């Protein structure tokens, strides 16, 4: 192993982070190498390879990556956004825009949505003050209230009606207080008012803050979850390339989920099979496979423990420190990897990376990287990813290099020269760089590409050179590669709702990255695979363009040529889109509880109401379905397809005409094909027309997704309400199990915490929390897709089956059960609308 002959001059500063927020610029400039290292040039020219090649550029074949696999059969929920979590307004006198976590809103929603849970224990405590049956109270005590009467008093009040009103919590127009209610209020106020909010408020705030931090940085996917195995692609957690001595007859794969680690055996023919699985109680944050010894892994957990693990010898704890390395940081994220010495490991956390000798006395070690002045770190800078880049062989970098990424910069560290990075570069990625892969040189003597992926989907490609005794440095300027959202232009134009769905899908976080270089052809080709949080695998090919022109001779055009979409590429996107739109939208995670409307209905029946409209209304209510136009006896008006109106020819009309000839026309044709295409579709279309012959052209467009999907219910209702049939079980019938499944998983943790603190009696808390923990632990695994699929399989039948439709429901509740986002689109019919804050956090 050659030792770097000469390091670049650096002022050695020790101590904590720099006080300034301004990054150190001395590392930034490409010409720095040329100016300060005069000896590096003759060295490279000796090899006959221009290492400072200016035009090392990977040209994409298409402007963006293409979907490789059809979208999964399950709907994908993009999850929380900043809009869901933050308070929208701010004091006007603020100089800067202000944002805070919206606890109040979430709190009130929580009480509405899960009142039965929030107040269940209180109900039990106050049981002696309630009389559940019987018309009259035998007791003279004023502290006993008849529940039946109270409910009667409350009858007709639909509290969630107020949620919808924009006016806020103004109060119900019919509200009046009976004596009973007043007594109840006096009785319950001290308990209802404080204990629930005290207990829950704290948990809610904690949960909100945690969700928000997770939204800003989700470290579960550190390292990525995509493996490219010889001969095939696969969607497997934790990308690991066994190399060197570990490349024996069998390849091995290290797999990590939140609470389990596994070693998988991979062969070229068969499917990967798990060899051994390990349960990590505190949660595993990192796993890596030894590049030196087959089947040896290092695993680290949130508790700060680092263990060596071999299937043969089992676990061996080699390091444990619940504290962070350099300064105190609350993050329990830990990482461990190997080094050039098979018995020496790196252990990392947010504040630094340490080298530890597993054979030496426990706890001893040497800091490899410190978030501090030595590396010219900025204020608030933290380690997000560390990776051992070692690999020996010809044309490779030193096997002692480690990559360290922070939210601002990328560092290359040589384990023989700790603390001072041998290379630093500001990546300026607008999201967390959690994925990185060092690739083999595309050609012998070429620099090695280093792929860096942000969680937001951005990709950057750097070239690193530095064989033998020269220090590693960047060869040529870094390059950004197209992200999945760049592929939007390959898709046909859609109506707004679907367009938004597509856009959301393409912008899903990247959770896996795998790349390979095919050097067999004359031009090396970089094949790039990305896995998104929605479960999509996208693929892109780039080919290398080495700029042939000398630096002194400027070419006629210094713009990089732009790629364009081939017909095959757009066809591929079209097919994928078609499959995507066929995926039924996600079922509602929650539906408002309903009060029985039967009593109200029978009351109405007594007053003979005349007229078609009230009758239709009553019929719809009795059947518990959505009120439709046909119920009101209004006939649909035949709408001609929109088209360019012949009119006075001016420039605007001509431009509109031209625009119409483009994608819009294609879109319209596609719509026409959908609704009146050959084969099975016309029949179904006809049948639907018989069932409900009131489709306007608008709802016809909206039914795009349902055109080929199987009917969900024998009773076809409006396509708007169909995909999400309401959960209409009365709230009192919701068993613990049912609510556990109906609750958004992100809320389950809070609920569980809350339940754990509640003074509930009997066996309900156990059963409830048990079912919850099971769900959440499986849900919490990064294998989101698989779990979701399992989750849907386990769902109670009230989701999509006719039972749900026949269960008692009212107009109000079914409207409420239809997610507001959809309603908005039906009503406004345009404008991609950000969904309303979900009833959760």
């Amino acid at each position, binding site marked *: 192993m050659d030792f770097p002959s000469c*390091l670049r001059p650096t002022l050695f500063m020790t101590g904590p982070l720099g006080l300034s927020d301004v990054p150190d610029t001395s590392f930034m400039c490409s010409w720095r190498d040329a100016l300060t290292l005069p000896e590096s040039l003759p060295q490279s020219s000796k090899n006959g390879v221009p290492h400072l090649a200016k035009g090392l550029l990977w040209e994409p074949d298409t402007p963006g990556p293409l979907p490789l696999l059809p979208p999964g059969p399950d709907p994908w929920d993009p999850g929380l956004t900043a809009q869901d979590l933050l308070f929208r307004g701010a004091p006007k006198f603020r100089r800067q825009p202000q944002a805070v976590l919206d606890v109040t809103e979430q709190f009130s929603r929580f009480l509405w949505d899960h009142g039965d849970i929030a107040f269940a224990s209180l109900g039990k405590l106050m049981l002696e003050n309630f009389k559940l049956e019987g018309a009259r109270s035998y007791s003279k005590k004023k502290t006993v209230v008849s529940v039946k009467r109270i409910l009667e008093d409350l009858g007709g009040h639909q509290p969630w009606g107020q949620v919808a009103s924009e006016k806020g919590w103004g109060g119900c127009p019919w509200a009046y207080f009976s004596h009973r209610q007043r007594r109840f209020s006096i009785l319950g106020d001290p308990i209802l008012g404080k204990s629930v909010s005290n207990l829950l408020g704290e948990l809610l705030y904690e949960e909100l803050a945690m969700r928000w931090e997770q939204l800003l940085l989700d470290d579960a996917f550190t390292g990525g979850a995509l493996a490219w195995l010889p001969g095939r692609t696969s969607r497997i957690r934790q990308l690991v390339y066994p190399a060197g001595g570990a490349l024996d007859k069998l390849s091995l794969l290290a797999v990590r989920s939140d609470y389990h680690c596994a070693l998988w055996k991979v062969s070229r023919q068969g499917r990967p099979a798990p060899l051994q699985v390990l349960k990590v109680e505190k949660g595993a944050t990192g796993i890596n496979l030894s590049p030196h010894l087959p089947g040896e892994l290092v695993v680290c957990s949130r508790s700060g423990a680092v263990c060596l693990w071999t299937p043969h010898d089992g676990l061996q704890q080699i390091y444990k420190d619940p504290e962070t390395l350099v300064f105190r940081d609350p993050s329990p994220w830990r990482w461990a990897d190997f080094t050039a010495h098979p018995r020496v490991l790196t252990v990392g956390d947010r504040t630094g990376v340490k080298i530890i000798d597993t054979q030496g006395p426990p706890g001893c070690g040497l800091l490899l990287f410190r978030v501090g002045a030595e590396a010219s770190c900025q204020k608030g800078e933290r380690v997000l990813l560390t990776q051992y880049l070692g690999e020996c062989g010809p044309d490779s970098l030193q096997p002692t290099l480690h990559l360290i990424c922070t939210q601002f910069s990328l560092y290359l560290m040589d384990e023989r020269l700790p603390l001072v990075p041998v290379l630093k570069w500001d990546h300026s990625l607008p999201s967390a760089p959690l994925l990185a892969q060092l690739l083999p040189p595309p050609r012998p003597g070429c620099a090695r590409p280093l792929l860096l992926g942000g969680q937001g989907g951005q990709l950057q490609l750097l070239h690193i050179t530095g064989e033998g005794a020269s220090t590693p440095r960047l060869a040529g300027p870094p390059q950004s590669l197209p992200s999945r959202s760049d592929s939007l232009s390959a898709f046909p134009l859609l109506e707004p709702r679907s367009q938004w769905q597509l856009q959301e899908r393409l912008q899903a976080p990247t959770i896996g990255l795998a790349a390979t270089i095919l050097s067999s052809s004359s031009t090396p080709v970089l094949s790039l695979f990305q896995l998104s949080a929605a479960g999509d695998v996208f693929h892109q090919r780039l080919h290398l363009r080495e700029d042939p022109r000398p630096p002194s001779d400027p070419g006629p055009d210094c713009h990089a040529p732009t790629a364009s979409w081939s017909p095959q590429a757009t066809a591929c996107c079209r097919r994928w889109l078609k499959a995507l739109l066929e995926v039924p939208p996600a079922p509602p995670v929650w539906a408002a509880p309903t009060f029985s409307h039967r009593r109200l209905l029978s009351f109405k029946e007594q007053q003979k109401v005349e007229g078609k409209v009230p009758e239709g209304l009553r019929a719809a209510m009795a059947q518990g379905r959505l009120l439709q136009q046909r119920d009101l006896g209004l006939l649909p008006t035949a709408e001609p397809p929109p088209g360019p109106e012949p009119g006075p020819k001016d420039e605007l009309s001509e431009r509109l005409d031209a625009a119409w000839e483009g994608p819009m026309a294609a879109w319209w044709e596609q719509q026409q094909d959908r609704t009146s295409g050959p084969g099975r579709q016309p029949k179904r279309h006809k049948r639907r027309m018989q069932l409900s012959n009131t489709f306007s052209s608008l709802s016809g467009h909206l039914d795009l997704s349902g055109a080929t999907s199987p009917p969900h219910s024998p009773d076809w209702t409006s396509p708007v309400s169909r995909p999400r049939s309401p959960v209409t079980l009365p709230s009192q019938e919701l068993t613990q199990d049912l609510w556990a499944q109906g609750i958004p998983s992100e809320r389950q943790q809070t609920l569980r915490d809350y339940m754990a603190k509640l003074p509930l009696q009997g066996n309900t808390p156990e059963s409830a929390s048990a079912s919850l923990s099971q769900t959440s632990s499986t849900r919490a695994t990064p294998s989101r897709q698989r779990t979701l699929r399992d989750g849907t399989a386990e769902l109670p039948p009230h989701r999509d089956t006719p039972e749900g439709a026949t269960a008692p429901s009212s107009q109000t509740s079914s409207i409420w059960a239809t997610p507001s986002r959809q309603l908005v689109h039906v009503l406004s019919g345009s404008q991609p609308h950000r969904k309303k804050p979900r009833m959760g956090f």
Partner: protein
Amino acid sequence: MSDFSEDLLRPAPEDDPAETSVRPRSGMRLPWLQKQVESVATRGKKEKDFAQTTSACLSFIQEALLKHQWQRAAEYMHSYLQILEDSDSNKRQAAPEIIWKLGSEILYYHPKSSVETFNTFHSVLCYEDDYAYSTASQNMFKHSWKTSVNFSALVQTPGVWDPFVKSYVEMLEFYGDQDGAREVLTNYAYDGELNREPHELYLKSKLTFEKCLLNVQISQDYFFFQILYQIVPSHTLMLEFHRLLRKSDKEEHHKLGLEVLFGVLDFAGCTKNLTAWQYLAKYLRQILMGSHLAWVQDEWNSRKNWWPGFHFSSFWAKSDWKEDKALAYEKAFVAGILLGKGCRYFRYISKQDHQDLRKKFKRMKKLVKKHSIVNPGP
């Protein structure tokens, strides 16, 4: 709102709009936080149009640079210069640095740029009244600039000054000041908190300039090598160190010589070092003949559970035989000594039939039978 009252009491931070309760509790700064917050926060004063334009322009420049569109970047840069007129003094002060950084980057790669353009750009920027680096880089710039005039002063500053020291030593050597050169190197090697690469430099320079390393008094060199061995046991100079120790008369040096060799071969980057394997094969034979079995066992005990997989697997046997027969031969000998003749590596290699090596193999088998630590010979 969670901490409305707290917000009222706390003075509004002027510089960071994302400085609110939504900042991560860990103190971590996230460059993408502000974008998230801005997507929600609707009230409060927004950035001025000018600031919005310039920040958009900056992101365009960065985007163009990452797409290698130098011309486009240069055009945007032209517009970006107006930030020097920003009424916000903080931004105005930070601007020249950004312009310098991005501008020089563009000029470095732009096909039409030349040294003249670069110089013009530099002088124009220096002319700006507000031209200032941030404190950190300013200090550094001053340091390296001022002290580069005077090597000896620079060398005393904590830091990595390899190229300067090297040039300085070369200069002193050129003028015949050998002692001065030696002093500079020694001072550099032991000064400051980083004493790794100076060691390396010192030793290497010594090798280069004196060219008589192995003949000089062992006590002094031993000291340097000893430290280097402690911190970089994988160093290429460790083989020199081994030779030095082998030639010593002290028995403890002979033992250390074995330790150094094993240490070198522990590293992934050294596994194919033929010289190291040759030295080890030769030295093992020598030591075992000198009946120091305990030394070998000392070294082997800590390695016996991982060296077989690391060096002597059948995978490596095949691959080494294919790539480097001499290496395979040396390794097979060592494997035979350490693991016995039943070990996979030894068996695989000794079964190979190769004309040139036939004699060698015969001798190897004989030696292994005699010296293997698994079955100690009679």
